[in-house]
């Protein structure tokens, strides 16, 4: 997977998590995975289509989600599934929106769909040219996982090859 595609997501996650949670964040474990994605808690999935295609999954356990939700909402929130789903979708929305703003300004054009809750215990396996990068962000409120599998679409790949 191309680092130039991933870096904006790492930067965005780092900045958005630190800003919204008002606490320092640190990138913990990072790994490349070709196996099927295994959900850790409540996950949201954003699909990307265009010059770059693939998907990004945000994953968070309900207890951490409640802490994050309380910080986002400015008042104490219960640790239930609805709160967790809403939290993980909003985090995904902010991080991915920020990252694609950077990529779009670099000349990549694509469309994102609103985050959807990822209910399956396991996702599809990654393709040979689309292995997934899994990152754990350690925040003062718990761990947030981001799983990115992106690649250039065929047209863009040809264009880059010919340049």
């Amino acid at each position, binding site marked *: 997977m191309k680092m130039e595609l991933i870096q904006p997501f790492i930067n965005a996650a780092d900045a958005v998590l630190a800003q919204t949670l008002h606490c320092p964040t640190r990138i913990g474990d990072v790994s490349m995975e070709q196996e099927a994605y295994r959900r850790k808690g409540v996950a949201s999935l954003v699909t990307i289509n265009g010059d770059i295609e693939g998907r990004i999954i945000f994953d968070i356990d309900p207890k951490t989600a409640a802490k994050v939700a309380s910080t986002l909402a400015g008042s104490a929130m219960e640790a239930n599934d609805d709160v967790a789903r809403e939290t993980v979708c*909003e985090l995904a*929305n*902010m991080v991915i929106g*920020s990252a694609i*703003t950077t990529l779009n300004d670099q000349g990549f054009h694509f469309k994102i*769909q609103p985050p959807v809750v990822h209910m399956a215990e396991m996702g599809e396996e990654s393709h040979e040219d689309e292995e997934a990068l899994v990152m754990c962000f350690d925040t003062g409120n718990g761990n947030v996982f981001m799983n990115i599998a992106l690649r250039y679409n065929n047209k863009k790949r040809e264009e880059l090859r010919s340049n």
Partner: protein
Amino acid sequence: MEQFPFLIRKDRAAIRYLVVDDSVFARKNVARMVESFGGEIAGEAGDGCTAITEYDRTSPDMVLMDITMPQMEGIEAAERIVRAHPDARIVMVSSVGYQENIVAALQKGARHFVQKPVKAEILYEVIKYVMGDDAIMAAPAAQEN
């Protein structure tokens, strides 16, 4: 949260906002900010279609509208509201802040753009700018609600 002088209408009534976002948290967060500026929430909507009907129902002074939403996106909703109400003050509030999106929103009638995560001081300045001469600043105690 940082304290700001209240932003109120010239007639000293609270500015009424319609907050549109498919995320409950995002709506809560923005609502909390504008209330801290002395504003009042006239209505909320979770998608573009509801935003249009809520605008007609509540006639807010300002709409704070997300872009990426289910059913109808914010830019299309903004266009429809402005077509029916040319004086509508719509500020797009979105995490997707690339130039094409901003230009499209402004071309369809939005007055300004604020990138998420929303910073209170930026939202405050944008509201002040968009309200222009129709708003004044006041100390919290001076507001007549």
